[in-house]
């Protein structure tokens, strides 16, 4: 809070010398969950500020631009603890902030959106990748900045098919998100001409992610688990729950590459991405947050930048004009992806290229060359207009 005040004072000094009029204040809320989901790899362990760190950078960027436009941006964060009422928190945040960036699981996001529906507060979904939020459960007051599972799966499938790795061994975790990802991968295989030669389920029998003699055991388990598979080109793992996928590379019975939740991973952002001017935002991010930028950080950055783009173009901090601007057919935002990002008008999903990364380098960026579309090649990723179940009202 104190820091927030100092920032405001510093800005007002800059602004007052140049402008006689009162500055326009744009207040953005950030609604997330407390605690982090543990990852198998220690180096991928998310920070406590995963996500909001990106929003903070965008607020800083917006304030740099705002100096020239007499606009000031503020960010207020609420983290929900287990059992806390998301609707109540969303209402409280909306009392003070016109627009809210949300990093919530699907059900919580829907509760927040419905709680804010009558007061017309807009939510920018920077976390949840569930397709249903853009399909049967879509909401007219939610813009989706995070990509969907189907966009991620399609991005991966296009590359695997381009690479002529068309025979997939699909290994699915036993939790609900893993199954949803597997659904998206099956759909992608059908769309782009890959064949799932066999499916296996990796049961989560519980246990710690970190043990003192973990490797020895894993080295015995993984080859056995993957043996006697029909001929395949690539093992595709659906393991959003972080139970087994990262154990697969170099340990399969047959020497095969891994993709999906480990190996070659589709994502909206990676710390290794440096094309299209991205090195500049990577440098700015590291300078501000003393760590590297994750996909969640980038999704939150993009959400907050979209707000800044709208306020600078409309010269207004009014949440309704921000929302109207974002929904205009000519809206686009630059986010270091080599092309403009635009909104799908049928479900308010941000179109975006998807990076394919191996943890150290960017391997490729989808859509792949040759996957054509009559409107935008970005619409070869995810659920397209003719297939949508979304009705916005």
């Amino acid at each position, binding site marked *: 809070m104190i820091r927030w005040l100092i920032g405001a004072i510093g800005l007002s000094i800059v602004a007052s010398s140049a402008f006689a009029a009162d500055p326009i204040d744009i207040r953005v809320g950030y609604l997330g969950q407390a605690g982090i989901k543990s990852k198998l790899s220690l180096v991928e362990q998310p920070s406590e500020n995963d996500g909001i760190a990106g929003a903070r950078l965008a607020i800083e*960027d917006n304030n*740099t*631009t705002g100096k*020239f*436009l007499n606009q000031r941006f503020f960010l207020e964060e609420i983290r929900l603890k287990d059992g806390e009422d998301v609707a109540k928190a969303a209402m409280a945040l909306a009392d003070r902030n016109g627009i809210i960036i949300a990093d919530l699981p699907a059900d919580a996001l829907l509760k927040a959106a419905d709680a804010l529906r009558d007061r017309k507060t807009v939510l920018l979904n920077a976390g949840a990748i569930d397709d249903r939020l853009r399909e049967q459960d879509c909401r007219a007051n939610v813009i989706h900045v995070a990509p969907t599972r189907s966009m991620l799966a399609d991005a991966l499938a296009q590359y695997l098919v381009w690479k002529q790795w068309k025979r997939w061994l699909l290994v699915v975790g036993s939790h609900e998100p893993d199954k949803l990802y597997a659904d998206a991968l099956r759909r992608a295989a059908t769309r782009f001409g890959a064949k799932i030669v066999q499916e296996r389920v990796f049961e989560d029998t519980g246990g710690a992610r970190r043990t003192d003699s973990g490797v020895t055991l894993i080295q015995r388990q993984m080859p056995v688990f993957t043996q006697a598979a029909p001929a395949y080109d690539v093992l595709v793992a659906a393991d959003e729950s972080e139970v087994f996928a990262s154990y697969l590379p170099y340990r399969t019975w047959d020497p095969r590459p891994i993709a999906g939740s480990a190996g070659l991973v589709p994502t909206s952002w990676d710390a290794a991405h440096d094309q299209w*001017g991205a090195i*500049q*935002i990577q*440098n*700015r991010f590291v300078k501000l947050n003393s760590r590297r930028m994750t996909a969640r950080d980038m999704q939150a950055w993009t959400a907050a*930048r979209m707000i800044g*783009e709208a306020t*600078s*173009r409309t010269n207004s901090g009014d949440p309704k004009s921000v929302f109207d601007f974002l929904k205009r057919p000519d809206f*686009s*935002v*630059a986010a270091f992806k*080599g*092309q*403009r990002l635009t909104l799908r008008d049928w479900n308010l999903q941000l179109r975006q290229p998807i990076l394919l990364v191996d943890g150290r380098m960017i391997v490729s960026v989808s859509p792949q060359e040759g996957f054509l579309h009559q409107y*935008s*090649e*970005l619409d070869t990723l995810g659920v397209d207009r003719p297939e949508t179940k979304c009705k916005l009202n």
Partner: protein
Amino acid sequence: MWRRCLLSGMAVWLAATSPALAFVAYVSNEKSNTVSVIDTDKWAVTHTIKVGQRPRGIEFTKNGKFVMVAVGDDDKIEVIDTATHQVVDSLPSGPDPELFTQDAAGKLLYVANENDNTVTIIDLEKRVRLGDIQVGVEPEGMALSPDGKILINTSETTNMAHFIDTATREIVANVLVDARPRYAEFKRDSSELWVSSEIGGTVSILDPAKRTITGKIEFNIPGLRREAIQPVGIAITKDGKTGFIALGPANRVAVVDATTHKVTKYLLVGQRVWHMAFTPDEKYLLVTNGVSNDVSVIDVPAQKVIKTIQVGELPWGITFAQP
């Protein structure tokens, strides 16, 4: 003196024997960390000069003796002696210099520093930094008005053209343009300022006196998706009648009627076309093709691509000495 006599003697001899004067172009190769020297008489690379890391912005000094090249990953601008083709000096820019411009006298250099939202002013004679100007996020394009009074800087994430008074070194106006403005170019008579927006896919025409947008150049290439049209480099003929705009991954240079601001023709060049420079006689326009690693030569009066010259990896900037 003796050398100058000899050189001018040679120039006379060249003029007498060859149909056109031979010019020399310097091309920065972003990936291979080299600068290629092109002889326009032979249409071939005659020298390749090793420079620092990630060379991009490149320009001759006003006296034509040196070429300055921004080597962004080394946080400086290197100076190449055109007589020896060696890097002989470096200038203290801010972090990650990309594009720069100099005043008419060749005394001051204005550099866009992408990493810290500043434009740095360098005294070229004393080789010292004179100061910094705070601009928007990710400063990039730089242009000086023909009378030298106004410096334009474009900032890529702020999406503005900043008008900076060169006397007071303060921003006097900011004009919002379309997304990711990358390059700015004045008409010689100061009647117009053109700013290209890479992600927005347009070129904004600004009135430099009123400091407002008066028009936009739009591009529409049948069979090509809109997102692939990404305007970057701009060149306008001295008479202000014709403009050329590099369209990045659209692999084309748009020829624009600079009076009506309508595209009259699209010239197919190499892949991801970046920047461009006229030969001093304006007979040819050379454009760098970032992905196909070559330079296309456009015959300006005929509006045709006549040649392709292989250079280093990922060519980016290009400059000619003014006679």
